[in-house]
């Protein structure tokens, strides 16, 4: 196996008394898409900020393209491309001017810079709008230029921090396709998300992070095998708020239900065998006076893995 393009070892970050990231370690191979999956506040952005030189780790280190993030920050920064969660562009100048500015910040210039601007505008599909002010762009178009900036200097690994947050489905689809396309051309990607579906669709390997700790790591198949004997039942009922929470607490003692959490106005129940457990679950809900509106039996997936590991839904 080739040397990893990124190797994080015991990365930790503390803000005062708050431990934001605890001893996070993982590798990313060249040409691999690695996703950090976790709910908001899990430590994904803090981890990516340490890797991109925005924050100094309290403990641990990471080697990126052979350079230490704590001791060789400039070399690391030249090797990485960063696509932040928010649209970090200058709205009152054009897309081309934005790309030229950011390209210069990576040390590009002259004909090579022009060539790279043209290439990234093609990737973003915005060559025809290159001279329009960014403030005139739609949210999706801004997102695409935001990604283009990260690709200007042809990095060895691209960090994408929740790039689809706040996007419409069409823009989201386009971003996911772009990531896959970039990866087909050999680019390694570190992708953070709290959307299970995105991690499942894109990733060669996934690290699940919660409360600053990496609690699981592997391919999707490896991760789902850890909960292979569990099914997930999603049951929509006529309860909401505190009543729904109370019903969920009650269900944890019913039959073979190992975990219950609320999700999207329904109950998310982890059971050994969905078909065998279904009758008891329905009876348990009915005993609480609730009416069932919909039942969905789900195969093991990352949601189930997260539920199994944390006892909470990914979106809690």
């Amino acid at each position: 196996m080739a040397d990893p393009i990124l190797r994080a070892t015991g990365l930790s970050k503390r803000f005062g008394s708050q431990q934001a990231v605890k001893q996070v370690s993982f590798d990313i191979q060249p040409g691999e898409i690695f996703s950090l999956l976790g709910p908001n506040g899990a430590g994904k952005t803090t981890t990516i900020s340490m890797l991109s030189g925005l924050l100094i780790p309290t403990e641990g280190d990471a080697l990126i393209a052979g350079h230490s993030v704590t001791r060789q920050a400039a070399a690391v920064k030249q090797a990485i491309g960063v696509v932040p969660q928010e649209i970090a562009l200058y709205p009152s100048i054009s897309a081309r001017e934005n790309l030229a500015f950011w390209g210069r910040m990576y040390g590009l210039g002259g004909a090579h810079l022009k060539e790279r601007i043209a290439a990234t505008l093609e990737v973003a599909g915005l060559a025809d709008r290159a001279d329009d002010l960014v403030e005139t762009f739609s949210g999706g178009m801004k997102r695409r230029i935001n990604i283009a900036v990260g690709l200007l200097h042809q990095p060895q690994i691209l960090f994408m921090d929740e790039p689809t947050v706040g996007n419409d489905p069409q823009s989201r689809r386009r971003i996911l396709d772009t990531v896959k396309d970039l990866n087909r051309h050999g680019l390694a990607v570190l992708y953070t998300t709290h959307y299970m579906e995105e991690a499942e669709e894109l990733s060669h390997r996934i690290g699940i992070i919660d409360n600053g700790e990496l609690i699981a790591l592997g391919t999707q198949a490896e991760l789902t095998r850890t909960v292979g004997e569990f099914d997930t039942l999603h049951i929509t009922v006529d309860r909401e708020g505190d009543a729904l929470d109370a019903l969920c607490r009650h269900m944890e003692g019913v039959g073979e239900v190992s975990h219950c959490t609320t999700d999207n106005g329904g109950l998310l129940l982890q059971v050994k065998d969905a078909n065998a457990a279904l009758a008891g679950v329905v009876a348990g809900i009915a005993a609480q006076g609730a009416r069932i509106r919909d039942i969905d039996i789900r195969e093991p997936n990352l949601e189930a893995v997260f539920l199994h590991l944390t006892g909470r839904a990914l979106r809690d």
Partner: protein
Amino acid sequence: MKILHIAWKDTITRLRDRRAIIGFLLAPLVVAGLIGAAFGPAFRGERPLSDIPIFLVNEDTGEIGDIYAEVLSSPDLDGLFAVTESDDLAAARAAVESGDARAAVHIPADFSEDLLAAAQTAADVPVTVAVYTDPTASISPFIVSAVVERITLSVNTLMLSGQIGTNQALSHAALLGPALAELDSIVPQVIEAQAETAGQTSIGLTRLALGEEETDANPFSYFAPATAIFFLMFSMMDSTRSILQEETMGTLPRLITTPTPVSHILLGKIGGAFLTGILQFLVLVLASAVIFRLDWGNPLALAAVMLATVFAATSLGALISALARNETQAGILGSAITLVSAALGGTFAQASTLPAFMQPFSKMTINRWSLDAFLELTFGQADMAAIFPHLGVLLGMAAVFFFVALVLFQRRFVR
């Protein structure tokens, strides 16, 4: 090189903002114009155009000198002039020099005799009425001179015609009083009549400015730099606040993820503000020179004061942004400091008029040192050497503010 790219990007971004153009470039001109027009006369020490204090020193032993006394003291001019007759020319000149009088009119001892002799012999003997004026006042000396010229012209005309005697001249001259009430129409007539009688006039009129001649009593010499510094302070607070704006926008964190040292990013941001400030000042200097005919003095010294002032203001802005927790706090703090500095530093009224206990505070402001330096150039027409102390203080302030801001920002952005 990256520092320049960042500075240039900031400058371009700011110049494309129409509101900023209005706020930074047009507003100072408009405000300077309004303040100059409103407070110019008071600033020059002008009194209202009534009861203009003048001294008349009539040493003429003949009767023609009395014409001047009669007309200047006539009831028709009673509201315009407050005439003090005196025998002491030195005292009259001293009154003008001290500002107690706006002008002194001197008619020499042999005035009538010389004039009549000249008229009878047609000899070209110079006979002169002297008007000593206050150089710091521009309107009232002009009125006094215009009236004396009018009297002189009439006397000349009558004497040269040889058709009337001195008594008739006196009665005709008395008619000048009502006419003087309409100065607007008389002044052009004076000029026209002077042109017509050129070469015939026997009585010469000499206007002499007393004391240190001020080359430019233009009120904009004060208000243009005062307003320019005031708005510069605002725009520098705004420009350096863009560091915090970029932090909020996410572009500053993104810049830090590029292989650009944080110190270069900060220097670029502060450099952008500096470029904007220089541009703002240049536009104001050029526009005020054209619109208000303001002479800014020695160009090299002017450039030095501009650079030092902008550097100091930019550094202060950077320090305030570095101290503030967020953009809003920086805005409030920056505005407060700008307004207090303006009040103490002489933007709204001359700092020298502040009470003694406030003088030390005044001298702690960029406004005071910069404005004093500009006034040395505009009023005093000073050279570079005269403003070295001002430059030293401004650059010292700039260096301290800049260094502290840089250290605080480094700590803030590299965690």
